[in-house]
């Protein structure tokens, strides 16, 4: 079955503003049945706002939404679901304290607050079996599932709701390639039955293999919609970014392998998550930690910042063996370790407080630093070009990129000897990324040792001087200089022996 005659959902001149921020401006957009429609754009381009509008989570500030050619006000997710607009959200819509079975029945079509329909469980189980999720126990609490399993349950849950338009927002981000392939088969079957699919993903190749049509969003506007294959990668990227950013990464200075040691980990271990990790951080160097999600990279940062109990091995800071048991001890100028945590909204910042209050929080009570002196923050705010009305503005009103600037400055003001960064550019626009990269390089040049966990291998290649790739709590490979290539990083992440090693094995 090919594309439907009329769009299932059509947005006419839709805008959505939050305070002064324009999340979407004057967008016209349609999606049809029997078609897989991919939406591409950077973070903050308005993709998620679009999804939320179509699924009834939020209402437009102006403009109208047509469902089946009738102007409709979607009163809420329940309303949207009953019209066949079913969304699988990026922030998962599963209730952690309920079992898988109960989650599948929650809000199922037709049951409402009355008797639960157990039929959906059987249907969902059939779907799960097709996407390698047959082993998920129906009575397991969702909180006890892995992220991948939750995504599988989400997909099954969405499909039990008989969608006319299925909205998938980063639905497969935690799934491995073979499961993704099976999910795609399922999605194609839905399309062939006449269901419309709206698909958001950051994985280019996924969009290339799956999508029929592609729409690009940038800065809250709808740039263009075209058939898949009409443009090549380069052209698509420049449409997403707007202007070309050639020098995303600052130039790397020549490496100094025997620069002064700032921090050394010897045989570092923790519970079952970290085994025999040895890392040396040197003055002026940016050291990367890579690998698949959750292989222990993050635990190294937490251990160095005094968050883990019962660590093994030695930790030497500036020549002295230390045992770090509390963040307060880590940030003391004697050690000078700072951590910018992964989740800036719940760990890095206090969203309801003002920028000024957030900036001061780490500096307060640190020896030799006057937290109320604006001069210690200003240079970093300038370098990062923080955009805000005043420092009294609550952090929650800032964009993601500007929030991250505050989270960074808060620690940079302490003048740390060693910066620990957990994926500092995740979900941040390209311009802010370049600003952060440039600042990190300048810091390194001024003698700070930087340890960076990243899921973006471009960063590991172009920003870091050397990289440790983790696999199951161990350093699978230590890559330096020219060895840091995409192939080597991906290979080591999956624990495939490198070509050099393979040939050695063959020779032996």
């Amino acid at each position, binding site marked *: 079955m090919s594309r439907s005659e009329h769009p299932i959902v059509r947005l006419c001149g839709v805008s959505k503003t939050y305070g002064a921020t324009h999340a979407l401006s004057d967008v016209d957009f349609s999606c049809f049945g029997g078609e897989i429609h991919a939406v591409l754009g950077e973070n903050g381009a308005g993709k998620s706002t679009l999804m939320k509008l179509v699924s009834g989570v939020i209402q437009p500030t102006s403009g109208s939404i047509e469902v089946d050619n009738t102007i409709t006000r979607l009163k809420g997710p329940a309303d949207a679901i009953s019209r066949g607009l079913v969304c699988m959200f990026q922030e998962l819509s599963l209730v952690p304290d309920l079992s898988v079975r109960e989650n599948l029945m929650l809000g199922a079509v037709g049951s409402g607050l009355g008797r639960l329909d157990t039929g959906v469980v059987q249907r969902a189980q059939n779907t799960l079996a097709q996407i390698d999720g047959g082993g998920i126990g129906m009575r397991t609490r969702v909180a006890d599932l892995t992220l991948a399993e939750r995504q599988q349950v989400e997909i099954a849950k969405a499909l039990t709701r008989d969608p006319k338009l299925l909205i998938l927002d980063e639905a497969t981000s935690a799934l491995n390639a073979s499961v993704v392939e099976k999910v795609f088969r399922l999605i194609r079957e839905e399309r062939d039955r006449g269901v419309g699919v709206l698909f958001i993903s950051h994985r280019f190749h996924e969009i290339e293999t799956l999508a029929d049509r592609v729409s690009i969003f940038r800065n809250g506007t709808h740039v263009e919609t075209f058939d898949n294959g009409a443009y090549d990668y380069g052209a698509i990227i420049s449409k997403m970014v707007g202007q070309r950013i050639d020098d995303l990464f600052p130039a790397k200075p020549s490496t100094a392998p025997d620069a002064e040691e700032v921090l050394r980990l010897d045989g570092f271990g923790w519970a079952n998550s970290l085994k025999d990790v040895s890392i040396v951080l040197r003055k002026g160097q940016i050291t990367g930690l890579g690998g698949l999600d959750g292989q222990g990279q993050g635990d190294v940062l937490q251990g160095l*910042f005094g968050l883990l109990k019962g660590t093994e091995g030695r930790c030497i800071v500036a020549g002295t063996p230390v045992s770090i048991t*509390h*963040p*307060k001890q*880590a*940030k003391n100028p004697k050690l000078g370790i700072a*951590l910018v*945590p992964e989740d800036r909204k*719940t*760990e*890095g*910042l*206090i*969203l*309801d*407080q*003002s920028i*000024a*209050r957030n*900036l*001061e*929080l*780490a500096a*307060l*009570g*640190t020896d030799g630093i006057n*937290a*109320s002196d*604006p001069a210690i923050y200003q240079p970093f705010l300038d370098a990062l070009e923080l955009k805000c009305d*005043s*420092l*009294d503005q609550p952090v929650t009103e800032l964009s993601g990129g500007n929030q991250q600037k505050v989270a960074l400055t*808060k620690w940079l003001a302490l003048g740390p000897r060693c910066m620990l960064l957990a994926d500092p550019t995740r979900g941040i626009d390209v311009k802010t990324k370049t600003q952060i990269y440039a600042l990190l390089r300048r810091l390194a040049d001024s003698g700070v040792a930087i340890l960076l966990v990243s899921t973006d291998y471009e960063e590991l290649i172009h920003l870091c001087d050397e990289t440790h790739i983790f696999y199951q709590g161990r350093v699978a490979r230590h890559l330096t200089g020219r060895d840091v290539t995409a192939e080597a990083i991906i290979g080591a992440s999956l624990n495939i022996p490198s070509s050099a090693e393979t040939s050695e094995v063959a020779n032996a």
Partner: protein
Amino acid sequence: MNTLKQNLPSIDAIFPYIGTVLLILGGSYFFPQILGFDYLAQQLQIAAFLGFLALGATLVILLGHIDLSVPWVLGGAAIVSTSLVGSGNPALATLAIPAALIFGGLVGIINGVGVAILRIPSMVWTLAVNSMLLGVAVLNTGGFNPKGEASGTMIWLATGNLAGLPVAFMVWVGATGIIALLLKKSAFGRYLSSIGYNEKATFLSGVSTPSVIFAAFAIAGLCSALGGVMLAGYANQAYQSMGDPFLLPTIAAVVIGGTSILGGRGSLIGTVGGVLFITLLTSILSVMQMSDAWRNIIFGLIIIIMLLLQTLRRKGS
């Protein structure tokens, strides 16, 4: 980095003052004596008792917690101080107030241990501590009103006048001033509301969050104990469950003063307003010789109205 905006009290904190003025004006229409100096001075004296409790409670609520052990910290402190005075030994009698304060601080630290170390919800833990204190009191006093009396100092603190103003009021204002200064000028004050908003992020900023929680609960214990000493001075005795009627008005005063029960946002200046408002409301209702029933009803309704006004204001802005 102090800017003008941070130094102004929030609108929520001004509400109870407006309410207080309205109460005085409205009340004076029916009872002109309300505008008299004597009546108002007496209200300030009575407000001080609730004021000490609300002062401590504000710190705990800013932290995002709650202290339900107020009644028996108050009662316990009153029993400790009056028993020491009643012992007849002058050396022990001079220790009456310090001993009561130490008692309050210690209970506060026990509260803090349960909340900060064992991570028990403060509502449950302080409730359990309260019932243990009740048990200890019953065990010691045999379930009767304890023997003993207030010392001269205690009576003076509670009922004395200095330059025409009640001493109790001045001590309250002094204590509030000291703690306000502490909140404003020290890192402690900043940590308090940061923890109230987001404890994890505060901990990750290198703050020893358990110490802050201990300190807040200890200060709250001290404040409740001081309230107990004052009340014992006022009544010249301690009596069973003398603290029970104070628990809910304390929380109400803090919340009406604009402090969020969820923690983080709030101010002492608002609490002072809340205390004045509640004290005056209670007093006017009794001056009007309302029955207990109508006093409760009107009290409840007015608190609901104040809370709804807060919501309305927030929706508006």
